[in-house]
């Protein structure tokens, strides 16, 4: 059993593509259930946010699984063809897949490192999968772990402070341009996590009206619901911009979406009432010349974070701390997944039975006094017959499920019923020790 991921995110794919592929929350249950029915997929989960679309699956055959998920990806959006999509996809399996998921939930893979929304989005994706019963032993455990890792990273490292300080800075600046945020309107162009966080903070500070535009209008409608806001068709946003006091752009498109000319026009329409524009996108989506337009105040993410070198260094250190934390946790989970394989479980079960048998025999033989070799043989036979016959059913069942999708479930149950966890852990440690022994001579050179 292997956990695999096929996906794309803000770094690999342009926003135009991401937005067309994004699965709205309303369609998520159906989508994840369909993925579970795909050939070779034992467990499934879909994580779809504004910055990433990722398919998670547990499969027996990794290569087949990748192919299967890729095929599914192509079918998500009828408007996106395979050739268009495939170059942007990334693939992870096993250890790498778990590491990726943990980095995602820790927001180390986010556009703005430390943003808190991704954890909630993973939770939602997991909840949907749980209600659709598309996850099993492996994904359940891995997702739970991923969420707890995300929480640990947030509480034990300082990376979260970064995102909070960014949106705090945005609110503070807004208050230096607008005395009173009540009655003011914010326009979100693209609905990245950081933009939504900033909008949320602005609303806490009294802002009431939110307009959202994304290329995929359905997505805008979806996000607008959360803010009780107004979705705006993407083509109309330059005209609507004159109604916005604050514009937050976070699409990650490859070119400028908002030009100095657009802003000048909007200001003309709104009779030079000041506008505050925040560009969270990398690369920039608001033309830097906007900053020179009178009554327009343009700040990008770096301005908000503050260019102080010390801060930068500090942020890097906190991110490194988070990466270390993720690394440790990935090791633990990978070991656990390995333990779910049938063969080690069978071996552990056998070994345990042998140990018990040996122990009991020694105890009883010492109390029986001198026996003839034949008698001794019979007693030993009795002991092994009892344990073998007792285990026979369990071992046959385990072997039969070794290749099925229920394998991990059976091994998990067997390990619990026979209390094999310690047994397996010990053998894994032994294995690991052997591995390092075989590696160390090379290291010396």
């Amino acid at each position, binding site marked *: 059993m292997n956990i695999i991921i096929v996906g794309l995110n803000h770094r690999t794919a342009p926003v135009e593509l991401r937005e067309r592929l994004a699965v709205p929350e309303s369609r998520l249950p159906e989508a994840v259930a369909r993925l579970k029915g795909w050939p070779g997929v034992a467990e499934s989960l879909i994580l779809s946010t504004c910055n990433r679309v990722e398919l998670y699956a547990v499969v027996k055959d990794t290569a087949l699984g990748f192919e299967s998920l890729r095929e599914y990806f192509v079918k998500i959006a009828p408007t996106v063809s395979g050739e268009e999509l495939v170059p942007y996809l990334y693939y992870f399996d096993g250890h790498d897949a778990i590491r990726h998921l943990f980095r995602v939930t820790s927001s180390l893979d986010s556009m703005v490192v430390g943003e808190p929304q991704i954890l909630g989005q993973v939770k939602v994706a997991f909840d949907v999968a749980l209600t659709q019963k598309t996850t099993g032993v492996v994904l359940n455990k891995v997702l739970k772990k991923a969420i707890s890792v995300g929480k640990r990273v947030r509480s034990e490292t300082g990376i979260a402070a970064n995102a909070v300080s960014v949106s705090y800075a945005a609110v503070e*600046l807004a*208050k*230096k*341009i*607008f*005395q009173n945020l009540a009655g003011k309107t914010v326009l979100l162009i693209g609905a990245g996590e950081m933009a939504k966080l900033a909008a949320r903070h602005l609303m806490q500070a009294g802002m009431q009206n939110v307009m959202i535009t994304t290329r995929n209008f359905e997505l805008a409608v979806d996000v607008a619901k959360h803010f009780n806001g107004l979705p705006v068709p993407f083509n109309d946003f330059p005209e609507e911009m004159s109604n916005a006091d604050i514009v937050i752009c976070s699409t990650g498109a490859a070119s400028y979406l908002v030009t100095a000319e657009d802003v000048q026009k909007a200001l*003309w329409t*709104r*009779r*030079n*009432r*000041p506008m505050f524009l925040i560009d969270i996108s990398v690369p920039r989506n608001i033309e830097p010349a906007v*900053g020179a337009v*009178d*009554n327009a*105040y343009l*700040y990008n993410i770096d*301005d908000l974070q503050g260019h102080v070198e010390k801060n930068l260094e500090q942020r890097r250190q906190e991110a490194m701390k988070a990466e270390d934390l993720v690394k440790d946790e990935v090791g633990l989970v990978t070991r656990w997944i390995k333990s779910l394989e049938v063969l080690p479980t069978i071996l552990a079960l056998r070994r345990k039975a042998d140990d018990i048998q040996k122990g009991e025999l020694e105890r009883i033989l010492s109390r029986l006094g001198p026996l003839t070799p034949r008698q001794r043989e019979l007693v030993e036979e009795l002991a092994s017959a009892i344990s073998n016959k007792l285990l026979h059913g369990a071992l046959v069942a385990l072997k039969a499920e070794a290749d099925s999708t229920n394998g991990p479930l059976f091994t998990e149950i067997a390990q619990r019923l026979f209390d094999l966890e310690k047994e397996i852990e010990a053998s894994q440690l032994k294995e690991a020790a052997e591995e390092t022994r075989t590696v160390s001579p090379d290291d010396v050179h």
Partner: protein
Amino acid sequence: MNVLFFEVSLLLYFLGTALFLSQLAGRLEAVSQSAFVVAGSAFFFHTLALVSRMIEGGHIPLTTMHEVLSFFSWALVLVFLVVELRYRIHILGSFILPLAFISLISAAALPKEIKVLAPIFRNVWMHVTLSLLGTVAFAIAFVAGLMYLIQEHLLKSKHRNALYHKLPALDFLDDLNGKAISLGFPLLTLGIITGALFAEFTRGSFLNWNAEQIGALGTWLFYLVVLLGRVTVGWRAKRAAYLTVLGFAGVIFTLVGVLVKEHPFA
């Protein structure tokens, strides 16, 4: 008596100005609070000075240049105290108090004796008061415009220093600017009308094209354009700030340059 009160208030204004200017640099809450208390007591003594002067002279003390400047400072500080109590914008004092102090120290340099008024000038105070209140409003607009330009510069250059934190929001300053002008303009208009009527009454013609009248009309036209521009084509924000800062220079020119030379009753 009124001169004593005046001098006490001058001293207190000096102290208040120093405190308000030092709060610009520092972050001490205590400084800005004591600055406010000092400004308040200066205003109290200033009021006493004006009232006692009125009692001693038997008429409203707006007949000499000293009195005009003194009243101008008094009204300016009054507006500051009201705005401060209403909006708690401590930094406003750092801009208004120096202005009031400069005007007052000019007043102090002028002859302080109370003039005996010819009966014909008994009602001139109406014209002077209206014009002066208009000027006070323009002074407030000037201060708001200046603060706006500073804050706008700080925001554009992304300097988030102590001054940035103390200055109020841009739209508040713009609003204050707009309100001050929409208030100052009718006051000035009435001031000019009463002045013209008074000139007709005393000299037989509404307008005799002296420098004061030309200056006043020029100022009036300028603020008319500024006001119309704001209402119709959106001359607000930065442009309005520039215009009002510029306009106040014209006002000062009219007030100081011309009044000192030859106002009919000076």
